[in-house]
């Protein structure tokens, strides 16, 4: 019996679908699951008659693999990944490859790459986006880790990945150690931002224009045919059109407004804080979900805390177009933040990230797939060293064109008492980035006043620090322990 091209551990829905996808592309797959009844269920069920070999121990799985062996884990992020790595290592030989396809936190992947390489093996940590359906039909795949392993897995990964219109696969080598999982994390952060901004557009239409789900549905349909064309706008269109079987009402109107959150949005915000990147829109989206979660408290507060008593008088058709422009401008700023974050992380962790390729990887298969990513690819093709997306001619022109509407929509929402934290933060990012002068000089003066933290002067070279004795009392020494 010939040996399998790849082995996969972890037969939950994502794992099963990836296996079926690989098999469908002509690769033979050996599978194992800790609860072995799942292996039998799978080989006698969805995998029946296919080139898939069920294994009942790690040893058996490894024996069934072609060299260099490729063992892919699709298990829960965290401890389970480390445990499986330790169980697999004794059975592998030099040059064999362990692949983690779960949602691992990138510092763990950095650590694991080092560890697995120290055993003479190779390691890949890869982001896989697209949900269950993407896993089966073609996900976006973002691999990083031991570059030496890439050639061995490339044929498999690129054939199972989603393809964009010109046939190129949504899978390319991302970078060393944790780079793949980092990029996947930023993808998810951007997804948080996109979803929150679409929500804000919906909320403005609902609360200022008084539009129903039925009225909004054609608006999103139209938006999806223009520059906002994307998977998330498309499904929003479909969601707005869906009726509840039980009540006959629009489905959206019967869903409770409390959104859950898993790790990646939070990780992205923490990474932004750690590398010193002003990527605030993801954090706003995470906080918006946190706010949504305290439903009972909000209901009680809504009865105590008044909003403004204003009537916003606008032309509906024109205002809808203004909301669209605001959404697009905000989206550009959100992606600019994501790319700035990747850029700073690449410097910090010494990854050679290819920003155009990353945009291409996100063009298909994943949740944030959008027409718009083609523009990002073009921007980085034109100028691979582009410092910020906002400086690209196309994006610059869009924002210049949209900014009047963008500002007006946010101002009106605030006057009407409708929270628009992601739109506002995107604008704050834009205005902060293009401000030659910010009021941080006062912050510096305050810090020097109470903590002798020192400051730099506008008329002296950078890196020279000064302290003023503001009160005439106190010392002239700079602080070393107190940091505010």
């Amino acid at each position, binding site marked *: 019996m010939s040996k399998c091209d790849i082995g996969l551990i972890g037969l939950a829905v994502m794992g099963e679908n990836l296996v079926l996808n690989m098999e469908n592309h002509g690769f033979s797959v050996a599978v194992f699951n800790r609860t072995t009844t799942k292996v039998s269920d799978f080989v006698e069920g969805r995998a029946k008659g296919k080139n898939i070999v069920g294994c009942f121990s790690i040893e058996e799985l490894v024996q069934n693999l072609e060299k260099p062996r490729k063992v892919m884990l699709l298990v829960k992020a965290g401890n389970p990944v480390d445990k499986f790595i330790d169980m697999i290592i004794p059975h592998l030989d030099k040059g064999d490859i362990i692949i983690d396809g779960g949602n691992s936190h990138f510092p763990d992947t950095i650590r694991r790459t080092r560890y697995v390489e120290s055993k003479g093996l190779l390691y890949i940590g890869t982001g896989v986006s697209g949900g269950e359906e993407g896993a089966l039909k073609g996900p976006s795949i973002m691999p990083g880790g031991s570059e030496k392993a890439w050639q061995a897995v490339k044929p498999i990964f690129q054939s199972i990945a989603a393809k964009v219109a010109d046939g190129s696969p949504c899978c390319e080598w991302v970078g060393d150690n944790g780079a793949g999982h980092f990029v996947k994390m930023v993808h998810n952060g951007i997804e948080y931002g996109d979803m929150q901004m679409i929500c804000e557009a919906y909320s403005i239409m609902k609360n200022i224009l008084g539009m129903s789900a039925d009225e909004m549905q054609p608006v999103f349909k139209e938006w999806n045919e223009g520059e906002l064309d994307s*998977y998330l706008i498309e499904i929003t269109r479909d969601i707005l059109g869906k009726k509840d079987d039980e009540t006959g009402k629009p489905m959206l109107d019967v869903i409770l407004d409390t959104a859950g959150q898993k790790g990646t949005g939070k990780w992205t915000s*923490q990474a932004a804080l750690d590398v010193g990147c002003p990527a605030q829109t993801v954090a706003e989206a995470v906080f918006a979900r946190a706010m949504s979660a305290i439903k009972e408290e909000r209901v009680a507060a809504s009865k105590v805390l008044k909003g403004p008593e204003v009537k916003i008088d606008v032309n509906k058709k024109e205002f809808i177009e203004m909301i669209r422009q605001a959404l697009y401008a905000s989206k550009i700023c959100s992606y600019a933040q994501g790319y700035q974050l990747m850029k700073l992380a690449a410097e910090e962790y010494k990854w050679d990230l290819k920003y155009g390729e990353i945009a291409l990887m996100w063009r298909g298969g994943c949740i944030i797939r959008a027409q718009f990513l083609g523009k990002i690819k073009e921007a980085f093709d034109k100028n691979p060293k582009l410092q*910020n997306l*906002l400086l690209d001619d196309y994006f610059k022109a869009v924002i210049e064109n949209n900014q009047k509407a963008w500002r007006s929509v946010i101002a009106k929402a605030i006057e009407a008492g409708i*929270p628009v934290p992601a739109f506002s933060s995107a604008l*704050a990012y834009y205005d902060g980035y293009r401000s030659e002068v910010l009021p941080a000089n006062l912050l510096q003066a305050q810090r020097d006043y109470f903590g002798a933290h020192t400051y730099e002067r506008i008329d002296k070279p950078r890196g020279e620090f000064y302290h003023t004795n503001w*009160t005439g009392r106190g010392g002239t020494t700079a*602080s070393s*322990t107190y940091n505010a």
Partner: protein
Amino acid sequence: MSYNVGIIGLGVMGQMLALNIERNGYSLSAYDLDPEKQKNAKDKFKDKNIYVAADLPNFIKDLETPKQILLMVPAGSPVDNVISDLKPFLNKGDVVIDGGNSFFANTTDRTKKLNKDGIFFIGTGISGGEQGALWGPSIMPGGNPDGWPLVKPLLQSIAAKADDDIPCCDWVGNDGAGHFVKMIHNGIEYGDMQMISEAYFLLEQLMGLGPREMADIFEEWNQGELNSYLIEITSKILRKKDEETGKPMIQMILDTVGQKGTGKWSSQAALDLGVPALTIAKSVFARIASSYKEERVAASKILKGPKPHFSTADKNGFIENIRKALYASKICSYAQGFQLMKRASEVYEWDLNYANIASIWRAGCIIRAQFLNNIKEAFTAEPNLDNLLLYPYFRDSIHDSQVAWRQIIAISIENGLPIPGFNSAISYYDSYRAELLPARLVQAQRDFFGAHTYERVDKPRGQYFHTEWE
């Protein structure tokens, strides 16, 4: 000769605290690893009842038992290093106090670890900068509650006293609670500073006022409900002239600001605990944005903003509106800080006393303000208050201010002036009072692409549904 108290770490804060302790009638043994700092301290302490030791055995040998040793060393591994160096000299019942800016989770670990050997570890936040340390800081002790009675007289005597003579030092809670509360204090301080700087930004950039006029405005604001240390020093800063050029000092200072540990930690704690404390996070991000000075200068030449179109017939009325916007934003920022402490107290089982915390912050520390009396009053009247915004005084203040608040933000946005602090504060207010948020669309989207399920408005909480959308 024996000494009442030991202190390790003779940087600015350590020196000032030593002098404060000595002034309050205690004798001290002091030590620093760095011979340079030892020498400097010896000069500073020459007529004082403070002995500067050359090494650890000499530092410790004449300390009274149970020993009370205050550590004023940089946060992180230095604290662990000092503890392990001290360990062989310590006995059951001794108290080690970490007065640095340690991360609260580390304080929890250290408290537990030392407790195994019967040593009481206290992790305390100390706020007030150099002057506060010398004349009376705000002190926020947590850690091992069995150690508190031993160090209470010392810490309360050196703490600031509020107008009613109550010391700004009281037991906060077990384990890392003291350092957590200090971290929140610093997060709130980040917010206060950011929002004050936004008010200044509007006065200067939108209204075109000069430093002297602005100094008068802040001085006036300091007479009213905004009365606080940070408003007071802002006024003084705006009056200060640069000795070198004769120009207003504020105009000579470069607009880039650093940010270290605590603001970031507060934001991360908010993310971890799922508390929407966005104003603190925005203040950290605003500092980060300011640090990209060269990039900003370059971008300012490429990226266009709106044409400024500000004019007002009622200058004083507009200034008053900025004041109202600042006050309403400040209330929301504190509401977030207290919400964050409330959540942490539930998760970590600290049983925090919010009225006491407000009381401790009334003097000595950087955020000291009149306003904290109102917060103390709110939590004294209603210890289980869900949110500061719901207390009548604050509710009414915001109701009175909100038209002005919204108008100021709208005008800033239309004029291209970033005011993320004000903006996030109003988002917080409007989200918190929103019976319905658009999160239902997020839930629908997540269920659409990932079968994440959702709850329904017409079914009990905890029942999850999934729809086949296509």
